[in-house]
C-alpha cells in the first residue's frame, strides 16, 4: 500500500547561507584577520636591529611602499612578472599539443592511464624532483658528461643557476596544471564539429582558429589562471634552480621576514605582490575581451557550443 500524499515543497527554515557559515568563520578568523594585520604592518617602520621588536607601529606612513617601488626592488618585481608570464605561455605551448593528442588521438581505453601518467610526477616531493634537475644538469653531472662525450659541448654544461634553468624548472612543475583543464575542454569538444568544418571547406588551420580554439577557450583560460597565479607568488623552484638569478618577488618578501628583520617592508612587498597579480590578471582579461570582440566581428561562421 503506497501512500503518496502530495506534500508541499518544504525547504529548511534556516538562513540561506547557513551551510557556508563554518567556512566563513574559518576564513575570517584565519585568513582575513591575519591579512589585515599584515596590511597594518605595511604602514609601520623597522626599529633598529638592537631593539626588542622588529615592527614599530607608533608612526604610520607610506614609506615602505615607496621603498618597494625603488629602483632596487622594482627590478625584481618586473623579473617576477616576466618569469611568470613566460612560464605560463611556455606551459601553454608545450601542454596544448599533448592535451590535444590525449583528447583526440588516443583510444578511450588508454586515455585514463595516460592522463594518470601526467599526474604521477606530482606524487614525488616537488623539492626532490626540482633538485633532480640539479643532479641531472650539474656541470659534472650525467647530462654534461654525455653532451661533452658526443662532442656537442666543449666545456661543462652551464645551464644551472641561469634564467633558463628557472624557466625550465617552472615549466616542469606547472605543466600538469595546464594540461588538465586543456584536456577536459578539448575532450568535450565534439569531433563532429571539426569534421563539419572541414566538410564545409575550411582548411586545418582555419578550423583550428575558428572552431576548435574558441570552443576550448574556457579551458585555456582556466589553465592560464591555474598556472599564472601560483607561479607569480612562487619563489622556491626559482631559488633552487636559479641561484642568484632566481630571485623572485616572493623571495624578496620571505627574505625581509627571514633575514632582514624588516617586517614593515616585507608586509608592504606582500601587499604589492597580491595587487600586482590581480592587476596582471585584469590586464590580460581586458586584452582577451578586446581580442575576442574584434575576432567576433570578423568571424564568418559562428558555431554553437554543445
Amino acid at each position, binding site marked *: 500500500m503506497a501512500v503518496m500524499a502530495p506534500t508541499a515543497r*518544504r525547504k529548511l527554515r534556516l538562513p540561506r547561507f547557513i551551510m557556508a557559515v*563554518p567556512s566563513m568563520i574559518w576564513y575570517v578568523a584565519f585568513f582575513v584577520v591575519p591579512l589585515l594585520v599584515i596590511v597594518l604592518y605595511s604602514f609601520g617602520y623597522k626599529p633598529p636591529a638592537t631593539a626588542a621588536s622588529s615592527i614599530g607601529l607608533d608612526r604610520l606612513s607610506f614609506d615602505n611602499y615607496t621603498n618597494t617601488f625603488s629602483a632596487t626592488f622594482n627590478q625584481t618585481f618586473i623579473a617576477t612578472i616576466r618569469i611568470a608570464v613566460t612560464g605560463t605561455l611556455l606551459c601553454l605551448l608545450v601542454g596544448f599539443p599533448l592535451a590535444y593528442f590525449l583528447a583526440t588521438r588516443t583510444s578511450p581505453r588508454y*586515455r585514463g592511464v595516460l592522463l594518470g601518467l601526467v599526474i604521477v610526477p606530482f606524487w614525488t616531493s616537488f623539492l626532490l624532483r626540482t633538485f633532480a634537475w640539479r643532479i641531472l644538469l650539474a656541470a659534472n653531472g650525467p647530462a654534461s658528461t654525455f653532451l661533452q662525450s658526443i662532442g656537442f659541448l666543449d666545456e661543462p654544461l652551464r645551464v644551472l643557476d641561469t634564467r633558463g634553468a628557472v624557466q625550465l624548472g617552472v615549466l616542469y612543475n606547472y605543466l600538469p596544471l595546464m594540461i588538465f583543464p586543456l584536456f577536459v575542454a578539448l575532450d568535450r569538444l565534439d569531433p563532429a564539429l571539426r569534421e563539419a568544418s572541414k566538410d564545409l571547406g575550411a582548411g586545418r588551420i582555419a578550423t583550428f582558429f575558428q572552431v576548435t580554439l574558441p570552443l576550448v577557450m574556457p579551458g585555456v583560460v582556466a589553465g592560464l589562471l591555474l598556472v599564472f597565479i601560483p607561479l607569480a607568488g612562487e619563489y622556491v623552484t626559482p631559488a633552487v634552480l636559479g641561484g642568484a638569478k632566481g630571485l623572485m618577488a616572493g623571495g624578496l618578501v620571505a627574505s625581509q621576514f627571514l633575514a632582514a628583520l624588516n617586517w614593515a617592508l616585507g608586509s608592504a612587498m606582500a601587499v604589492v605582490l597580491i595587487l600586482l597579480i590581480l592587476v596582471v590578471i585584469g590586464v590580460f582579461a581586458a586584452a582577451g575581451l578586446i581580442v575576442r570582440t574584434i575576432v567576433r566581428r570578423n568571424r564568418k561562421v559562428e558555431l554553437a557550443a554543445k
Partner: protein
Amino acid sequence: MTTLAPLRRRWDWFNGLLRTWAVLVYIFLFTPILVVVIYSFNRGRFLLTWDGFGTNWYGAALQNEGIQRALATSVRVAAVNAVVAVVLGTMAGIALARRSGKWSRPFLILVFLILVAPEIVDAISYLIFFVRINLGWSFARLVIGHSIFNSAVVTLIVLARLQGLDESLEEAAADLGATPWRAFRQITLPLMLPAVLAGGLLSFTFSLDDVIISSFVSTSGGTTLPVYVFSALRTGLRGDLAAISTVTLAATLVALGVMVFALRRSGESVEGVVGTITGAG
C-alpha cells in the same frame, strides 16, 4: 550521439608529429623522477655526486628518526586537513550552488582572494597571527594553514559540479515525497561524490607537498617532510631523502591503482574525476 569515423589517413604526418611531441613531453615529465629513483641507490654521502650503487640509504631512511617523524606528521596533517577542507568546502559549495543570494558574491570574492594570495603572504600572516593568539601546537597550525587554501579549492570544485547537475532532479524527488534531507542524501550526495573525492584528493596532495606555509608555521619537532627536505636542500641532500621519496612514490602509485580500480568498478570514469578536479566536468 554518433561520431563520424575520423579521417586519419590524410593527416598521417600531423599525427606523427603529435605523437612524437607527446612522447617527448612524457620523457620530460619522467626524467627527474627516474633520476630520483636511480640516485636513491647512490652509495655516496651526498646525493649530488654519484659514488656507486648501494641500498644503504633505504636502511638509513628507515632508521632516521627525523625523517620518520616528519613523514608521519606529513601524512597525518594531510589527512586531517583533507577532512576539514572537504567538510568546509562541500558545505560552502552546496550553499553557493543551491542557496545563492546576496551573500554569494562577497563570499566568492573571499574565496578568490584566498586562491590568489601567494603562499608566502599566507605563511607570514598565519605565523604572526598564531604567535599572537598563542597557538603553539604545530599540528593545529599546519592543519589550519593548509586547509584554508584547500577548502577554497574544494568549494569551487563542488560548486562547479553542482552547477552542472540539474536541480530538477532534486525537485522531482521533492515532488515525489522525499524530504529535503533524503533527497540530498540519496540524490545530490552520490552525484556530488566525484567532486568531493576529487577535492579530498587534491587537498591531501597539496598538503603533503606544501613547503612554504609549512616551513613558516611548523615548530621544531613538528615539521613535515617537505620542510625537512627544504632545509636539507640548502646544505646537502642525502640519499635517504631520495629513498623515502621513492618509497612514497611507490606507495601512492599503489593507492592510485586501488582507487582507479574501485572507480572503474563503480562506473565512474577516470576522466570524470579528472574533469571534476579541474572544475570543468
